[in-house]
């Protein structure tokens, strides 16, 4: 009887601990990021034509203050390179790609040229969010909830805003 009671209590406590830890882990993080381990900042350079979108996306995260995102210089390593490519038919606006050296943020000219300024900016903010380790909040699933609440929703041209939302900022602060 004592052993059963002990086991029941142990299981109960373990479940409580797991429940609490699941709550804490509900943020959406990637494992890699583009932040320089030594400097704690992201140094970038660019070969993209979408200057307005790039500057907007960078400024939205830079202003949160914990990870400076600044243009690289001759004596700093490059952490992210902004580039363009053309892949018509793929339905992808852009992507973030981790690398051994500088990571890539690549914009697909096929769609960036067709979408509104708001969507271009949303796409850049989304990709810089990945560079800061933020993941898609709904994973690979459609979610009306996340479409209205996160710039990291997997279709950034589907969201009606271009800046990080409260959830995104909380995720950012949870990491940095």
């Amino acid at each position, binding site marked *: 009887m004592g052993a059963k009671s*002990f086991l029941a209590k142990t299981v109960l406590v373990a479940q409580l*601990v797991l429940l609490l830890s699941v709550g804490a882990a509900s943020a959406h993080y990637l494992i890699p990021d583009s932040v320089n381990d030594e400097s704690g900042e992201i140094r970038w350079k660019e070969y993209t034509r979408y200057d307005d979108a790039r500057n907007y996306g960078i400024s939205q995260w830079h202003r949160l203050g914990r990870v400076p995102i600044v243009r690289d210089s001759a004596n700093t390593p490059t952490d992210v390179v902004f580039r363009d490519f053309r892949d018509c038919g793929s*339905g992808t606006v852009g*992507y973030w790609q981790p690398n051994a050296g500088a990571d890539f943020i690549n914009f697909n000219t096929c769609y960036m040229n067709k979408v509104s300024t708001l969507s271009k900016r949303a796409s850049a903010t989304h990709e810089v969010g990945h560079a800061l380790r933020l993941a898609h909040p709904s994973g690979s699933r459609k979610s009306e909830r996340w479409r209205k609440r996160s710039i990291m929703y997997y279709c950034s041209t589907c969201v009606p805003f271009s800046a990080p939302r409260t959830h995104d900022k909380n995720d950012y602060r949870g990491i940095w």
Partner: protein
Amino acid sequence: MTLVRGTTARTLLALAVVTVGFVAYAVLARETPETGAAGGGEVVDVEVNYALEPTDEEQLVGFATNVFVGRVVEKVGAEGAPLSGPGGEVVPRTQFSVAVLENIKGDLGDEVTVSQTGGYDGSEDRRVRVEGDPLLRPGQQGLFVTSHDEREGWYTIVAQPFGDVRIESESQRTDLVEKFERARRAQVPFEPAADR
């Protein structure tokens, strides 16, 4: 006294069990990334940002020029998409010839070239995948949601991995064809909101 000592010992044991369990859980949770990390240099998954709702079949089919069931014949190319800037780097893409078995949208002939984003990245000596989408293999049967690229002359898979569904059985094929036939009848054309 013995009773108190026994209770304390059980409490300590319970705490130890919970602590070990929690640590194990935390370690396992940390080792389950949402995306493949670059570590190891073997395979890297890119985090894609879509221009449409990729899990909405009506939007997916509306975006596509051709939807069909096909069988992969062989790899026929590895022509990447050049990136702007110096270095000559490309977004890896791999092309396959695919025998068309059944048209769902459009009317393709016997065999077409399908381009899949992903493949070998020579500049980093590794393989690149889009959101975990493995490269096609000869002999595989799949449902392909594609968009014809007139400049390249091939059919690009839309919104990977949602636009190339591997078919493992006849019943799965029947279900998929029915689902995408329904989506075709209710398809939503791709009309991005441009600046006015």
